[in-house]
């Protein structure tokens, strides 16, 4: 950890999402943050904190590069923003196509490019996800930052976009004065965060591949927000895994959520969940998550602890006590 840092002026994208909104609340409570610019795709009036002091809310579609440019070199420059926290990510796996890709990936490229030549911004923080990692039987259970990424061309766009956005940020690290921090966060078990497991757990009966019960790591929204806000301060850059406080087998997560786990033949799970998706409109895709239901994969947060001082401390509030 570095010494005392100057007061920050922070811009948060994706402020309309549950994580973005909680992050803004957290930053408002942080005396080291002087001012917050919350960027949301929704109307400003719908933002719950829009009358808070030190907070400016701005509506923009991150896909519209011209408007983003005007935001960055207009309002953000006027407010002398020095840190950008990019949390905007399309959450639904059902939506695919160029527009989703533009939102997930091109917006990152565009924002970094603008930040690099911006007169006041010196730090860019990207919210990435553990979904970028490959899990397979010959890879370590504990996932370090050097762990192979899921570069499969067969991966769904939901995964490919996250990998591409992550790498888009990584390739710009160290090339200029802009400090880039990529936080690969464990799955946040909360609604509206794009959590596939959260969606999976919404059914009273959860099917698991028979014979497998891998270890997973999950995080609460509080820990996610704490990691993002902690990354504002300090001067370190790089890639950091951000694990959650809950490391447990899939079966225990089912039980703690008050669901019934039923083992089923692995080959049947994709069709079962496809039918569920069509009938109920749920988002969970077994095919996309299959490996996480067979092979253990737990984020190793040593680097984040040593460099950013982040230690997960807010376990998930499970509906069923242990």
């Amino acid at each position, binding site marked *: 950890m570095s010494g005392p840092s100057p007061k920050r002026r922070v811009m948060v994208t994706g402020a309309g999402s549950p994580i973005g909104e909680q992050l803004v609340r957290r930053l408002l409570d942080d005396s080291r943050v002087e001012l917050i610019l919350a960027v949301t795709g929704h109307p400003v009036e719908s933002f719950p904190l829009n009358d808070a002091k030190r907070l400016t809310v701005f509506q923009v579609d991150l896909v519209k590069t011209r408007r983003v440019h005007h935001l960055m070199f207009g309002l953000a420059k006027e407010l002398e923003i020095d840190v950008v926290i990019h949390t905007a990510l399309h959450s639904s796996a059902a939506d695919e196509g160029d527009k989703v890709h533009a939102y997930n990936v091109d917006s990152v490229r565009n924002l970094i490019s603008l930040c690099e030549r911006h007169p006041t911004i010196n730090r860019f923080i990207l919210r990435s996800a553990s979904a970028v990692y490959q899990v397979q039987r010959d890879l*370590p259970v504990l996932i370090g930052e050097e762990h192979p990424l899921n570069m499969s061309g067969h991966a769904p766009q939901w995964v490919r976009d996250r990998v591409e956005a992550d790498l888009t940020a990584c390739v710009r690290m160290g090339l200029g004065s802009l400090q880039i921090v990529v936080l690969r966060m464990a799955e946040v078990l909360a609604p509206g965060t794009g959590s596939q497991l959260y969606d999976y757990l919404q059914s009273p009966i959860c099917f698991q591949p028979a014979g497998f019960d891998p270890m997973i790591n999950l995080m609460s929204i509080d820990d996610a927000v704490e990691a993002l806000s902690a990354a504002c301060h300090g001067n370190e850059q790089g890639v950091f895994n951000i694990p959650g406080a809950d490391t447990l087998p899939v079966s225990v997560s089912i039980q703690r959520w008050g669901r019934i786990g039923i083992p089923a033949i692995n080959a049947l799970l994709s069709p079962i969940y496809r039918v569920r998706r069509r009938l109920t409109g749920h988002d969970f895709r077994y095919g996309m998550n299959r490996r996480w239901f067979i092979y253990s994969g737990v984020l190793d947060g040593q680097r984040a602890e040593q460099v950013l001082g982040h230690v997960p401390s807010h376990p998930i509030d499970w509906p069923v006590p242990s």
Partner: protein
Amino acid sequence: MPFPPSIAEALAALFLDDEARLRAQNIHFLDAGHGYDAFGLHPSFVALGEVLVSPLYDKYFRVRSFDHHHIPTTGPAVLAANHSGNLPMDGMLIWLDVLRNTTPPRVARPIADHFVPSLPYLGTLFSRGGLVGGSRGNARSLLDAGEMLMIFPEGVPGIVKSFKKRYQLQTFREGHAELAIRHGAPIVPIGVVGGEEQLPSFFSSRRLGKLFGIPTFPIPVVPVPLPVRYYLYYGEPIPVHEEFTSADADDPRIVGEVAERVKAAVNVLVQRGLDERPGVFQ
């Protein structure tokens, strides 16, 4: 696992005495928050493991083991043993032997070929007892956490070798030596005698192995393992943590030499066991 720890606990309460149950409760492991470590180990399943392995250890294979004082009681360590027998009984018996004969009780973490943790049911059960897949990252993390690894440096060629090659050590891979040097862990050689005769086979089928998701499938000449007696000999630890620095782990010459020393030490223990045992079943 298809059943929760409470069922494992109930089974342990039914079949284990208080001392054994207490032993499982007192094992050193890093609880990641829900009673499991990050690799899936759970003390209740360690107790269940003792329930399952004890009959083999006590009644069927009637294990005799020697020189437990060589097993480090704390800190990172690597147990390196010869591998044999077509079924990994040697690993299970060493696992229980270490658990029973260390104070405080330690779980030797078996490092298995990649296919083992991905076997349905068995892989999960083994993981709950402490087994991890044989990736460098897993071994590194465990040693960093002060755990004790159980490695069979011969790998699959050791366990599936034909009966005519019994007690002839196969090529020792060097990963265990590199890990031990890099992480400052002493290497404890183990000689296992008895395993070679438990399930003799004269050939193995890669095609059948592929069917079951394993490298090769041995065709044994008997349908079940024979009730041979197992002998386990723990050798004096090779103090690589005192002799080398972690940077030496990048020197292929040093790593190769250490692996050869381990192989020689294991061979001495195996020969001792062969000399001392009165017979295959005695």
